[in-house]
């Protein structure tokens, strides 16, 4: 690339180079491998220490839960589903952005995804790991959680395949497994890079095994690219189905506020919305700490903010439509539930949800704001919080005041609800810190393909046109 090629200020967004700073194939390898190869920065140990401490909080909370039972949580009658389900839905939702970036944007040939897909897929895996904890522990008797799987047992008992809760077991565990396989497939060429750059015997051995002897031959790429395409193709309906299935946990019940057909698309939009907010939060931190401003440019962040604006507006539409349907249905229980949701005892949570999820993303209509890193960082934090409250509102406000006023109660969490949730961040960040320390956090093989010279018909500026047979 000549230096004049870098003067991009006058170009429309679609023609700007995706990477800045005169990148070559070698500079991409050096930048991304360098993060892992240089000496571990002290801040990493500090961060890992903090994350491990939180992880201990998670283990401690789960230990106490297993010993004592779900009575340690703030659950009451009628609120039998509390933070555990809220956290489950929240974490699964966050995972969805990673799959959207790795699969759906791949099928749509959005080449800017290459800078963030590895990172976002890792986030998916770790978020889904956190999510899987909650349904597993909320059963109380954790040691019989295998009853949810169709395993022949001495009781002669089989799971109820008509139950959305069972669909969830299959949908979420398939989602985790398929995401892991997709992630590993993407990692193979980059693991081979690490193998070839490894200096120590242990690294040579470990990356040698993990990269399965990859030689980068086109006879391998041929199968590899098709495998990648197929994985993207099957992950796309999978990611749309997972949160739809999660939403049927609610929608299939007869509870006002849950029993609604808008839930599957509304949950999927919300999931992608919250997931992108989390990707923005994490990439802003990572690109700053590791100096990746040329790989993950403001252009990349702006594109994510546009998706946040779109999905945030879809979520806002769903909030409005729920109210309309409640009124239009003529069902007094439904109408009461929604008026009560906004103005009843949990009204404060409702307005946190609306202002963080619907109003905050509207900032991104303005180019100045959606390209400002501090603004988007703060906005993404608000959205993360707002989306947690969305699940809180759905779960708790519908349960706390159901059909009979005699049943009504107010739900508040105990210290153990909070500790388990906070502890799940420990698991998330522990896994994330290990990932960015030991694995390539940007897909080198894929990022290289967005350079103009990766095209076999590329003609270097200043040379005469290539020949074609």
């Amino acid at each position, binding site marked *: 690339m000549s230096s004049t090629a870098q003067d991009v200020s006058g170009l429309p967004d679609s023609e700007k180079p995706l990477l800045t700073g005169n990148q*070559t*194939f*070698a500079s991409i*390898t050096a930048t991304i491998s360098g993060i892992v190869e240089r000496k571990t920065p002290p801040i990493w140990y500090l961060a890992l220490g903090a994350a491990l401490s939180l992880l201990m909080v998670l283990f401690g909370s789960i230990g106490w839960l297993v010993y004592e039972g779900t009575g340690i949580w703030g659950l009451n009658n009628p609120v039998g589903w509390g933070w555990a389900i809220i956290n489950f839905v929240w974490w699964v939702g966050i995972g969805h952005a990673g799959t959207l970036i790795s699969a759906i944007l791949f099928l749509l040939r959005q080449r800017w995804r290459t800078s963030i897909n590895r990172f976002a897929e890792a986030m998916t895996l770790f978020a889904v790991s956190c999510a899987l904890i909650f349904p597993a522990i909320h059963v109380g008797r954790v040691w019989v959680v295998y009853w949810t799987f*169709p395993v022949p047992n001495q009781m002669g008992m*089989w799971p109820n*395949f*008509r139950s959305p809760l069972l669909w969830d077991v*299959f*949908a979420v565990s*398939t989602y985790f*497994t*398929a995401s892991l*396989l*997709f992630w*590993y*497939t993407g990692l193979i*060429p980059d693991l081979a*890079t690490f*193998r*070839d*750059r490894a200096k120590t015997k242990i690294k040579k051995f470990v990356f040698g*095994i993990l990269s*399965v*002897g*990859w*030689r*980068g*031959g*086109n*006879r*391998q*790429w*041929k*199968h*590899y*690219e*098709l*495998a990648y395409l*197929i*994985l993207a193709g*099957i*992950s796309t*309906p*999978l990611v749309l*189905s997972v949160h739809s*299935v999660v939403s*049927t946990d609610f929608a299939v019940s007869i509870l006002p506020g849950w029993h609604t057909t808008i839930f599957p698309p509304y949950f999927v939009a919300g999931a992608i919305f919250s997931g992108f907010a989390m990707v923005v939060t994490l990439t802003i931190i990572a690109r700053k700490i590791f100096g990746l401003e040329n790989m993950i440019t403001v252009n990349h962040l702006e594109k994510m903010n546009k998706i946040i604006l779109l999905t945030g507006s879809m979520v806002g539409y769903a909030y409005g439509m729920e109210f309309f349907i409640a009124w239009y249905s003529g069902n007094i229980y439904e109408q009461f539930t929604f008026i009560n949701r906004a103005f009843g005892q949990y009204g404060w949570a409702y307005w946190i949800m609306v202002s963080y999820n619907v109003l905050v993303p509207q900032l991104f209509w303005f180019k100045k704001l959606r390209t400002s890193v501090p603004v988007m960082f703060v906005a993404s934090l608000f959205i993360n919080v707002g989306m947690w409250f969305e699940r809180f509102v759905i779960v708790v406000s519908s349960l706390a005041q159901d059909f009979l006023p005699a049943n009504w109660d107010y739900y508040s969490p105990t210290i153990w609800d909070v500790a388990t949730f906070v502890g799940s961040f420990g698991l998330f960040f522990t896994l994330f810190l290990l990932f960015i320390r030991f694995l390539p956090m940007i897909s080198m*093989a*894929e990022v*290289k*393909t967005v350079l103009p*010279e*990766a*095209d*076999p*018909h*590329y*003609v270097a500026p200043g040379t005469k046109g*290539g020949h074609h047979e």
Partner: protein
Amino acid sequence: MSDATQNIEGVLAEFKSPSDLYHAAEKVRDAGYKNFDCHSPFPIHGMDGAMGLKRSPLGWIVGLAALVGTSSALGLQWWASTIEYPIIISGKPFFSFQAYLPITFALGVLLSAFAALIGMLVLNGLPRFFHPVFYSDMFAKVTDDGFFVSVEAADPKFDSNQTRAFLESIGGTNVEVLQKS
């Protein structure tokens, strides 16, 4: 001396750019070589045509896995809910197939995902931790910014001297005979 007695297993040549590798692939293909490969740090668009390769059959493998996954999931749910453990739930029929579709879909995807990764590895002959190209020290660049053509000794047209000269004539540099040292 013949190549076999000298333990020669192939020839490796470096090319400067994806574009050079692409044109080299066309020439190696047209010269009639069969056991050759073009190594690059990332997949190069159109290379299959340049090398004269057929489309990967992986789609059929994954399609079969999807069929096995969906049919066994549906079969399991049918058998468990109607024969092994028939219980009336909400007055629904034992085989209420609509409710079985989410799990049917999920298991179809699960098996397809495994088939895609494992099938890809098997078709590629991986894991294979040793290959003659690894005799070359410069080959480590292939995962960074190196572009290589390798011709294996198994190719009927292979002759270490002629193949070497041929690769040089089409613009290959650092041409190296892959030989057990």
